[in-house]
């Protein structure tokens, strides 16, 4: 049953060589879809996270809705959006952003919760008003946990982008499907390897950003 014919090795470098432009395009599109999703997700998640942290009543509701949302398989979510937004990038991004939200909101809430009460009291005592305290004390101290959420959201999104190939987007996911449709291994392997490489690179990049943003964390 195993198909180990020599005619179709896992990677045919001549194909890679003659399709560099297509591969680059797919990679760039993958990165674009990811950046839009994660940035959009972060922009929406920060206010929601702060709300959920400040108002305990909203927290249970927000996290419960997010949790229920999370169990919807990505293909089903994209499919449910299709009748309304069609085979467009909008469908893909609504789905991708939605998935980043729960990870980001949950981590923002827990990050802000983790700020020691003494530190917050000290800030109040020094005359910090709520907004300044949030910006100068709570958010910086919560940054490591927020960044951990951002890293997971990014790696997750990079995987999910491949699924959007089924609704006409997909980045590297298109190469993966191409390999299936043409019964040709090389595009699939190239798509999969580059997708993992992109995830690893983005994760390392965000880890570096985290180090630079929280210089005090290295000392402890």
């Amino acid at each position: 049953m195993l198909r180990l014919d020599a005619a179709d090795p896992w990677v045919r470098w001549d194909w890679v060589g003659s399709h560099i432009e297509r591969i680059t395009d797919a990679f760039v599109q993958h990165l674009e879809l990811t950046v839009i999703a994660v940035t959009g997700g972060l922009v929406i998640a920060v206010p929601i996270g702060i709300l959920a942290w400040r108002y305990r009543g909203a927290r249970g509701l927000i996290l419960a809705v997010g949790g229920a949302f999370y169990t919807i398989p990505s293909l089903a979510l994209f499919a449910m959006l299709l009748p309304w937004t069609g085979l467009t990038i909008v469908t893909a991004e609504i789905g991708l952003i939605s998935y980043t939200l729960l990870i980001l909101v949950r981590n923002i809430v827990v990050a802000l919760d983790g700020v020691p009460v003494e530190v917050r009291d000290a800030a109040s005592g020094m005359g910090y008003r709520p907004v300044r305290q949030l910006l100068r004390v709570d958010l910086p101290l919560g940054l490591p946990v927020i960044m951990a959420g951002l890293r997971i959201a990014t790696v997750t999104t990079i995987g999910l982008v491949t699924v959007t190939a089924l609704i006409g987007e997909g980045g590297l996911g298109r190469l993966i499907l191409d390999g299936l449709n043409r019964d040709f291994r090389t595009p699939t392997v190239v798509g999969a390897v580059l997708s993992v490489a992109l995830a690893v690179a983005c994760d390392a990049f965000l880890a570096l950003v985290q180090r630079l943003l929280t210089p005090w964390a290295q000392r402890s």
Partner: protein
Amino acid sequence: MTFLADVVRWFADPTHWQGGGGIPHRLEEHVLMALAATATAAAIALPVGLTLGHFGRGGALAINVSNVGRALPSIAILVMAVQLIGIGVVPAFVALVALAVPPIVTNAFVGMREVDEQLREAAKGIGMRGLQVLLKVELPNAMPVVMAGVRTSGVQVVATATLAALVGWGGLGRYIIDGISQRDFVQVFAGAVMVALLSAVVEVLLAGLQRLLTPTGLRSATSRARWGAVAAGAPQAEPVT
């Protein structure tokens, strides 16, 4: 609104409830496949994760295996399984098992390592042997986290089984995949609703199983841990691909 009426009409159509392409048969395929894949994955992953956790060895392996698993797209695993084995039920099964193994290994390992060292010492102190410590002390205490892994994998498998329609297997994903290629968004939407419902049901059932297997004394701690933040490498619920 006419669209939703069309979806209702689709569900009301008796021909969609009959035969090999009917809803009952597709649902049965989906459920049986998910059950078989999750059970097989648990049978492989639990002994590995629990053993590594018990001896405290191979932590980097146990945790990295699931990080790599998260980065590798499930579509790629499915397609490569087809390219290796050919089209049909076997590659779908193999791919789903491969996807389900890493979270179970990681959670089993982390769950065992998180058991309070003092409990372990106390168990040895009252004369328990290695296997007794494992089965009577470590495993019950690790159960919430261990079962969280099984739950994550189970829900993930139900979701990814949807994608398996892409590689020539059945299940509820057929309605979505066929609907997209025929531009029949009514069928796509109907399939998506069924898949989402099935996922929700499986999530609730596995959460119930997790609770049932958790010793009474640990139960309140479990619900608290559910809302905990996710740190890199920590066991967690994953979005479903």
